[in-house]
């Protein structure tokens, strides 16, 4: 039989057309909703301001703009700000005494140098912020990063006309590239599966592909929710009004032992972070942090530095390691000494089991849910006593001692 090259060419063209084009079109619809899309982020922020509900912003991973909008919206009502990265997502208002009205300003992948810059900005510009909760992460390496803290502006972006009306900066080529990337395509298949499984298929399709956000829906506890991101639709996954993250659509830790083994292996990110400076925290950061605490105390508040909780028994495993243990001890003892010398409040929650946390209250090795954080802070307030808002941190520190 004569080889049919013509048929082969058209077959290939057809296959590519049928595979690439639908993927491109569907993903392009969604890219706008998941690249950092400022107009939609504004909508998400406004919706939360109006409803006090749970919202997932257009980009769960690039949520800095959303958090900045929310912080500025909440500034008149709050006196406590939680800084840091996603490890602090589990810190809720519930964990604090009623006198401390907080907004959890932690953002995805927000390094300590940046968090220090944000705290310094708020000290300069927001007199009513008295309490600064700052995580000192060794496990994700932020405490070991080199250099000086960044100078940051936490000014209200919504006040700037240029930013508020600015569309996504991604070019069409970037959007096409993003739409055809493997992670996007894998995500698309997950969504198509969820649409297929949905009772109201057209409604599910419409909400994902044709609208910037889902319809409003009610969570189990009666809180209203709306999703601008497409990853965890209709699962009540998102930021609460206090800025904390619900972790509703995330799987809890199953096999903690395997995770700990993976974490303490010599090629893990945790080990590599410890090796960055052999456990030596950045002294420049520590100087800035101490100065932040001083300034906060001067205005009648204080700073609480938190070594975030790690999966139960994980830190202990590190401490027993022959040489990683030495580095981690150096970090912990160094920070304790620093806190002692500077008379600072340091809450070391690394060994979360000491506070009664359980493995199922973690998402992975270093992301604790609100349930664990609440236990940690409950223990903390029992030890230190709740701060007297009139006399501020002096009492807190005295009780801590």
């Amino acid at each position: 039989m004569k080889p049919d090259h013509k048929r082969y060419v058209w077959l290939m063209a057809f296959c590519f057309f049928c595979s690439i084009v639908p993927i491109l079109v569907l993903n392009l619809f969604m890219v706008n909703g998941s690249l950092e899309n400022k107009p939609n982020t504004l909508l998400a922020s406004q919706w939360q301001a109006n409803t006090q509900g749970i919202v997932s912003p257009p980009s769960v991973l690039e949520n800095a703009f959303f958090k900045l909008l929310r912080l500025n919206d909440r500034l008149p009502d709050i006196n406590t700000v939680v800084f840091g990265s996603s490890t602090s997502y589990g810190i809720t208002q519930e964990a604090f005494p009623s006198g401390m009205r907080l907004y959890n300003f932690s953002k995805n992948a927000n390094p300590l140098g940046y968090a220090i810059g944000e705290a310094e900005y708020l000290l300069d510009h927001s007199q009513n912020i008295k309490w600064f909760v700052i995580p000192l992460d060794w496990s994700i390496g932020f405490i070991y990063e080199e250099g000086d803290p960044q100078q940051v502006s936490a000014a209200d972006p919504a006040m700037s006309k240029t930013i508020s009306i600015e569309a996504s900066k991604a070019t069409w080529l970037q959007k096409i590239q993003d739409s055809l990337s493997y992670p996007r395509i894998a995500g698309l298949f997950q969504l198509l599966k969820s649409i297929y499984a949905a009772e109201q298929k057209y409604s599910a399709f419409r909400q994902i592909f044709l609208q910037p956000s889902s319809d409003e829906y009610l969570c189990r506890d009666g809180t209203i929710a709306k999703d601008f991101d497409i990853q965890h639709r209709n699962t009540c996954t998102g930021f609460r009004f206090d800025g904390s993250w619900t972790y509703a659509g995330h799987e809890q830790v199953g096999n903690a032992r395997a995770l700990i083994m993976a974490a303490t292996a010599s090629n893990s990110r945790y080990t590599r972070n410890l090796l960055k400076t052999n456990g030596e925290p950045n002294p420049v950061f520590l100087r800035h942090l101490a100065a932040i605490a001083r300034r906060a105390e001067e205005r009648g508040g204080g700073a609480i530095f938190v070594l975030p909780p790690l999966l139960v028994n994980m830190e202990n495993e590190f401490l027993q390691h022959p040489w990683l243990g030495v580095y981690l001890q150096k970090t912990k003892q160094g920070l304790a000494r620093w806190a002692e010398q500077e008379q600072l409040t340091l809450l070391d929650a690394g060994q979360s089991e000491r506070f009664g946390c359980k493995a199922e209250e973690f998402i992975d090795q270093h992301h604790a849910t609100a349930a664990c954080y609440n236990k940690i802070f409950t223990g903390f307030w029992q030890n230190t006593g709740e701060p007297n808002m009139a006399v501020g941190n002096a009492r807190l520190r005295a009780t801590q001692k």
Partner: protein
Amino acid sequence: MLFNSYGFIFLYLPAVLLGFFWLARVSHAFAAGWLALASLFFYGYWNPAYVGLLLGSVAYNYTFGLWIAKAGVRHDHRRKKHLLIVAIVSNLLLLGYYKYANFFLGNINAVAGTQLTLGEIILPLGISFFTFTQISFLVDAYQGKVKEYSFIHYTLFVTYFPHLIAGPVLHHKDMMPQFAHASTYRFSYENMTVGLTIFFIGLFKKVILADGIAEYVGPVFNAPAAGVQLTFIEAWGGALCYTLQLYFDFSGYSDMAIGLSRMFGVILPLNFHSPYKSVSIIEFWQRWHISLTKYIREYLYTPVTLAGTRMGFGKPALVEILCSLVIPTIAIFLIIGLWHGASWNYVIFGGMHGVLLVINHLWRKRSFWLGDKKAPSGFLARTLGWAMTFASVNLTFVIFRADNMATATAIYKGILGVNGFVMPDAWLFKWGMFGQWLEAHGMAFGATNGLIGGGAINWIWILMLIVLLAPNTQQIMQHYKPALGVPAMSATRLAWRPTFKAAALVWLLGFIAVINLSKQSAFLYFQF
């Protein structure tokens, strides 16, 4: 512009193909001109400033080629020779300025303590390729071998985008007749199917295999500079990962170049033919970067060796060997090393291969020198030959990849086990009973730097199986003359035919590669 980018695959290539075959219906010269212009755009997309340099080089060499040919017609041998010398020297000076000037000044400064500098010189992409291509044209013009002097075809021959950036080094006698042939300008479904298939095989090799294993290479080769002592496993793992990365990168690029060209009806010379299946270092160089080896052999090695043989003729055996084999081979390979880049690492890489080739040649001649009757050629001998060749190539690629001698030395130390033979502690857990058994029998598990994990080991053995057992692209496409100069080979059951199954498989390879393009990276051979 990279072959493995969305812009190239979905915009540039379709536009150039459509324009080429549409213009070919009007005029072949227009189509060739369009392809040359498109090639210049392809080149200029990286840095428009160097399009002028490329065009200037093309015009200069074309003019000199014409003058040399005219002098030949007039039998003015003296002028012909002078013109050739001027043209070659000016080409080498241009190459030397862009590629080697700062290297040599740096060495002079280091030795003499001077501060000579030419400032930062940006190396034009593909300058080695287009310079060598044109020198061969000049030499052939001098020898009266050039039959065609169409300027458009010459420009296209030099700038032709499938080969422009990273080869193969083209020979005008292979290319000019194809540019002149009417069938090249007729759209052919067969050329398109063959071209598309080879292109997607190459794209898959580059994007999935080469880039997949690449992530394990950097950490190992960067570690010594950070003061990390590599373990035995890490050093071997890093070296093997790079050896395989380079293989699939170069193989993938060569396939893509051949496939792209085939879509335009032009068949490129073979450049890569399963080099890691070689059972000797001589065979390795007959399979690795074939066009460069052929070029060097034709224009440098053969004349130099002949001269050396003449010099050593009638002298004692040792002098004869030195003149006819050792000195020419090592000298030529030092130049090949330097061709890859202005660094002592490359020079040493070339020198190592020169020495290995000399040893290999001497081994082959041992029957003459030692009175052996027959070289061993059984399975065991071939396996041993393969293992020695592969290990040698792998070791020489360490210095090829290392940023400096200190890094290469540190990796060699790890390879030799100077820093110990500890296995990563994570594997003890992963291997379960087997790990415990090994530990009980003396295998040391402990903390390593974590640079080579189970992922890297899986990549290594899977890719090694592909390298050694899978048919190469030429074998797969053997019924459709995929490249020029493909040696005769045995039939394979995996030989490609334009069937539904083949289309589905190639689509799958292409689809997987395309959705992973967002991790695009420059081809390793671009830097050379």
